[in-house]
């Protein structure tokens, strides 16, 4: 096995840095350009949202290395 840590699971290996993760926005801190997001498995992360417009709680965003790169269309 690799020694890349607990967050390197079968679905995503974010330590190798090039794997995207769909995460739901839980809370937005507009002042600091950050959002608290949760992955499907409950894993939470503070994510930079400066590269997206109008991010709101409930949105699903594609996250690479703790930065939201795209909003996923029609997430409900």
């Amino acid at each position: 096995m690799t020694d890349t840590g607990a967050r390197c699971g079968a679905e995503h290996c974010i330590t190798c840095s090039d794997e995207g993760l769909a995460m739901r926005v839980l809370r937005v801190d507009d002042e600091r350009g950050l959002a608290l997001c949760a992955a499907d498995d409950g894993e939470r992360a503070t994510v930079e949202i400066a590269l997206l417009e109008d991010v709101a709680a409930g949105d699903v965003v594609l996250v690479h290395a703790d930065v939201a790169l795209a909003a996923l269309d029609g997430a409900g």
Partner: protein
Amino acid sequence: MRYVDEFRDPELGRALAGEILATVEPGRHYKLMEVCGGHTHSIYKYGVDDLLPANVELVHGPGCPVCVIPMGRVDDGIALAHEAGVIFTCFGDMMRVPGSHGTLLEAKAQGADVRMVYSPLDALRIAKANPEREVVFFAIGFETTAPSTALTLKRARAEGVANFSCMCNHVTIVPPLRALLDSPDLRLDGFIGPGHVATVVGARPFRFIPADYGRPLVIAGFEPLDLLQAIHMILRQLADGRCEVENQYTRVVPDEGNPRALAVMAEVFALRPHFEWRGLGFISQSALRLSDAYADLDAEQRFGVPGVRVADPKACQCGEVLKGVIKPWECKVFGTACTPDHAIGTCMVSPEGACAAYYNYGRFAREREVV
């Protein structure tokens, strides 16, 4: 979860496989390259290739950011890690990539303060928590992770974090694709385009592939049905005599990419005149350095690095694997001297590397029998 379950439906997968079978011309051999290491990983994890006709061959491209880092850059990183007072931070897989005198993990065992982070922002947090130490972030990745590094450097500047710097190894996807297409030992019929890189750069940078080289490219997502649909779209283009860039991954990738990400990258980075890729050699304008405006945050300038070029080990055939010339199991050391636990080549280190994908999902035994 939405966006996942519906793209793993076995019934739809079988139906798509049937459509692919109906589209291919019997007697013609199709070689399609998936550019992105994430695609390679998905293909072998879900057995997508098992659903394809025998005359459709998938070739694995150079799109794993760990796999393309040359040994000399690892040596430079290790030299930085051994600097007095430095906390050296990098993604986990990078710690196991061999340089000419060992890995960053071994440097850690020898006393260097090497720490694994999940993002550049984590590295910045370490810098803020350790103001008396110098914190270096070893940045790797394509256009998917470059925005993250760029935002972190902007944040470091804005917050006045003076003890943070970055050794930049970010690479760009288009120049190696052009190098592959110019390579005489590789004949490809089409490309599965990197979905998440396209999220940042959009579809436009790939248009040279149909325009200049007459090959179709379909930008694809990472679930099994995404890949099957993208393969079908490429084969459909070939059957119709069309040749263009199509976007299968429209639920994520806008045609124009992410303009904000491109703007922040343009501010923080500048193109290097050339950069060495493992196995591919030097490729012009294929990598990023920090721009002059951010030169004070450039670890290579702050500390200086040896910058010595190191040839790849003779036994390792990562270069041919990265170019898709040979399959991983055709390498002399695959699964014997080179395993994920003790990798000789970078393709065996990262789960996105073609060799590791073959090894971890047990694909070598079956294919060896075929051969």
